[in-house]
């Protein structure tokens, strides 16, 4: 379980997150949704410690993450996997080197064990023959899949995804969504996905939090979202034709 407790975050004089409290459930695909610029990415980065909140705290199970120092955070960070919007693969390293980096730095595994683990993770994301390729040689979907492989290589307990579908075609988006969803349930990970893709919301969202102008506006499941009595949320959700059809079908 990950819990944000009364988080406030400002940049200069602009308040980006205003008193946000939310709990993300273990073993579920939790989604943070909202318009562009609503504060989703800042919330996600605050949860993983890339931004320090001005007020409030972040809890990983019973540990208050925000009060920990760099060395203490390292223990929790080894249990975190994150998929960035652009993949954030190291340009100067091959696919294999990118995926095995955490193993090289933080484990005492033998070369054979590391190679086996990297191959397993790459197989898991269906990228068997890409070991020697560099990020510049990969397509957008392949970059995201390598990022997923790197995120799961250390068997994380928490998985964060910042707009994993951005820049991908609808078919590849579904593949990425399903992959994250499968991995979440397979390993019982607490997954938090930041998205404004309604396909993802309807397909894999088990708990959904809607952020609007830095405030938590609504939270619930993907069934509840279609019947929510919230004008802002409805305007966001039913801007998508797919969601409109889903509501008609539900009725």
């Amino acid at each position, binding site marked *: 379980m990950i819990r944000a407790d009364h988080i406030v975050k400002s940049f200069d004089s602009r308040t980006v997150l205003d008193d946000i409290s939310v709990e993300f459930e273990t073993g579920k695909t939790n989604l943070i949704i909202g318009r562009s610029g609503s504060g989703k990415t800042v919330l996600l*980065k605050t949860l993983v410690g*890339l931004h320090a909140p001005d007020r409030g705290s972040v809890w990983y199970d019973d540990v208050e993450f925000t009060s920990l120092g*760099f060395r203490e955070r390292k223990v929790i960070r*080894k249990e975190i996997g*994150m998929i960035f*919007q652009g993949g*954030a693969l190291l340009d100067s390293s091959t696919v294999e080197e990118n995926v095995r*980096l955490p193993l090289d730095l933080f484990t005492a595994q033998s070369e054979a064990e590391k190679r086996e683990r990297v191959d397993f993770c790459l197989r898991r994301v269906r990228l068997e023959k890409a070991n020697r390729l560099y990020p510049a040689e990969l397509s957008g979907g392949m970059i995201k899949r390598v990022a997923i492989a790197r995120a799961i290589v250390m068997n994380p307990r928490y998985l964060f995804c910042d707009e994993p579908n951005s820049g991908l075609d609808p078919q590849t988006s579904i593949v990425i969504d399903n992959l994250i969803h499968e991995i979440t349930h397979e390993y019982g990970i607490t997954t938090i996905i930041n998205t404004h893709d309604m396909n993802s919301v309807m397909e894999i969202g088990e708990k959904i939090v809607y952020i609007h102008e830095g405030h938590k506006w609504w939270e619930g499941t993907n069934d509840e979202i279609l019947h929510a009595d919230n004008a802002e949320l409805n305007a966001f959700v039913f801007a998508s034709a797919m969601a409109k059809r889903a509501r008609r079908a539900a009725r």
Partner: protein
Amino acid sequence: MFRTLQLIGRYFILMGKVFSRPEKIAIYRRRILYEMEALGMNSIGLTAIISVFIGAVITLQMSINLDSPFIPQTLIGYATRETMILEFSSAVVALILAGKVGSSIASEIGTMRITEQIDALEIMGVNSASYLILPKIVAAMIFFPFLAILSIVVGIFGGWMIAYVTGIMIPADYLDGLLLDFRPYSITYTLIKMVFFAYIITSVSAFYGYNARGNSLEVGAASTRAVVVSCVVVLLFDLILTQVLLI
């Protein structure tokens, strides 16, 4: 003034992170070798080309300006040697490297910052400052003194070559001048300077790259600032080290 002090403070905070205990020495060793190739080996060509021409030009200019029956021609070889050893091979080569290596470091790390590669390292629990910057600093401090030696050798050769090709002076006099009143300490002095300059160029450039924010324009601006500040600091330390080591 306050902003300058703030900048210096942030630089030292970053250096504190850079020199904290590395995660795994073996990984750093591999990265140091990689950086020695990227920063050092790839600068050999540029250093050699510039040094050979500057050595030749110094010899030509000395020959033209010291053209007097009262001044022995051996002085031309002597002056070329001293100029190459004492100043060109360390300070001027360092300024050239600040342009080549400094801008490359700042733009590489700056791009990593804006494409969230540094954030990705931090999330993994990696000390990104140490992982990215320390190998560059160590590699440059090891390799740049070799570039200084290369510059001295090639520059002096350039002087001899121009004497031989143009006949502006007797090459044997040039060689005699090279051996005139030679003090090995001059080499030590230049190597010490180069180690300091290597640290300045890599750490200052990495600082600007690491703190780049925004978009590609910001990375370009950070790269420019890195080169300018590196050059100024190199010149300042050239003065200080000359005062400390030679006087």
